[in-house]
């Protein structure tokens, strides 16, 4: 499903210094995988995720998504890919505080061609167990509930890939478990999930762990869950 061949991302800092966010990364990811990306902060985890999510463009290398090279496309075309193929989940949820959970979940749909967006958003909220919280605003919800709203938003457009950047980083352990359980269920239903984390314990819930350091993949192996 995803092929990264010799991907590099170089940032130009002030004074002409070049920083390598990603350094010659090659990866192959199949449909239905559940991957955790771990590594110290500044190692390039987020740059990798942004690149996978078409928010960032690699400086060099080849990125095949579903067998197609999309990275050279116009920003409008990439916006459409993000809208239809990718669901984002962020550490700090990134919900709009002034509108209800339902309106937050509708957000990706308003940029799609889909109809009956309210019904689709309701269904997505039901699927994360928030059927009785639809008209609540984010500040009326707990952290775990907020992240579930964000997951519903990521799912609502039926993407093939879920990208999560430290999805449990702002949550207590109970809420973290709930979120990881949802990811597990989604993965069992066939969704491909790529999740950044810096907690080894969380990473073990995934099936494959990719460790990154200084922009390079330093290890890539199945998790203990799989081995067990």
């Amino acid at each position: 499903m995803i092929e990264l061949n010799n991907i590099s991302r170089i940032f130009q800092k002030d004074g002409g210094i070049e920083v390598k966010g990603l350094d010659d990364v090659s990866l192959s990811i199949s449909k239905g995988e559940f991957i955790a990306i771990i590594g110290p902060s500044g190692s390039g985890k987020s740059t990798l995720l942004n690149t996978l999510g078409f928010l960032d463009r690699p400086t060099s290398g080849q990125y095949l998504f579903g067998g197609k090279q999309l990275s050279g496309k116009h920003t409008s075309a990439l916006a459409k890919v993000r809208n239809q193929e990718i669901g984002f989940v962020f550490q700090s949820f990134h919900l709009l505080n002034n509108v209800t959970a339902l309106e937050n979940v509708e957000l990706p749909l308003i940029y799609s061609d889909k109809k009956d967006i309210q019904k689709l958003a309701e269904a997505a909220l039901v699927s994360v167990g928030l059927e009785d919280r639809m008209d609540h605003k984010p500040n009326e919800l707990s952290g775990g509930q907020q992240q579930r709203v964000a997951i519903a938003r990521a799912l609502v457009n039926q993407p093939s890939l879920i990208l999560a950047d430290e999805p449990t980083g702002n949550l207590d352990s109970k809420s973290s478990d709930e979120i990881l359980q949802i990811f597990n269920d989604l993965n069992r239903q066939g969704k491909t999930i790529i999740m950044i984390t810096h907690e080894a314990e969380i990473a073990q819930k995934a099936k494959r762990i990719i460790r990154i350091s200084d922009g390079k993949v330093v290890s890539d192996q199945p998790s203990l869950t799989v081995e067990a």
Partner: protein
Amino acid sequence: MKVNRIVKSGFSILSQSKLRTFFMALGIIVGTVALFLSMSFGEGSRQKMMSSIDHMFSKSSVFLVSGGGAMMSGQQSSTDTKLTLATAEALLENVSSLMLYDPLQVIGAIETTYQGKTIEISAYGGTENASVVWNRDVIRGEHLTSKDVSSSARVVLLGTKVAESLFGDQDPIGKQIRLNNTPYEVKGILEVAGLDAVHGLDRDNEVMIPISTMTSRLTNIDYVGALKFLVETNADTEQTVDEMTEFLRGYHKLGDDELNDFRLITPVAVEEMIGTMNETFSVLLPLVALIAMGVGGIVISVLMLMNIKERSMEIGLRKALGARNKDVFVQFLIETSSVSLVGAVTGLGIGFFMLQVFTMHGQAMVAAPETILLSFILPLVIGVLAGILPANKAAKLDPIVTLQA
């Protein structure tokens, strides 16, 4: 459909910061009200002047003013040749398109007394033609007759304000009043004429006596400042003016190298002059209003930029979730324009309300269709222009940066 959803989604967020949105609209509201009122004020004054001019300088007429001096001057110029009623009679006989005339001769500060009450007013000298020539009849009693003029009768017509000041609720007709200590019998009350468009004199605070009475008893001179002639309706005014000029030059025995010692003024010339005088209202005030609206546009633009800064997470999120730069641009442009639209509509509403209030207090104000249209379109144009910069900035935000926080 899609734009609809995007815009709706933006509004539900904009509507959360009501105070901010109100301040954004405020500049446009003030500008719209200022533009609307100043243009209505200009149009009102213009129409008032024009109607007053139409009244005084009815379409088919020519003014003959003595001397080469300032237009409409009631006083004598320094030239030797004077206009007299004989001049007028001679013109009437020799220029076929002239029908009637009446002099324009005013004397100011006449002491007018009735039963110990004294006011100072202006007196006009007129003939039996005055009601037709000046388009001003009496509302009570009767107008001057040819007999009054030929006999230099001591009769007087009062303006409504004079009648009110001297007589209050009493009926003035037939009563004796004194003008500079000479008794006159009140013969009639003149129709209301309002303010004189040219000099701003209150035409209701004056009296009229026969011109013959005026020249023999009050001025002791037989010449007049100006004469108004009515021209046949279908006659060519320009040609009439030419004929009058030719006749008068001969009548005054002017040599070829001598300048005219009189002036002929047509309504067209007067309207042009008034048009120039009216420029203050029709150009300067709207210009100030335009500046106000421009400032309103800048205010909107700046507040929208602040708004975008605060909403950068939202913008980055929208882009991550699939909004194209174009979608973001359109959303914010429409948000700004809509605030302007609301400002324009509110401003027009307030403007109409204030127009009613001003009109009730006697201020001449007219909302011409082009005023309404301009007061509506212009704020919208400014809103769209003010929205371009912020919307462009929003569209160019990098989602990676805005979502990092």
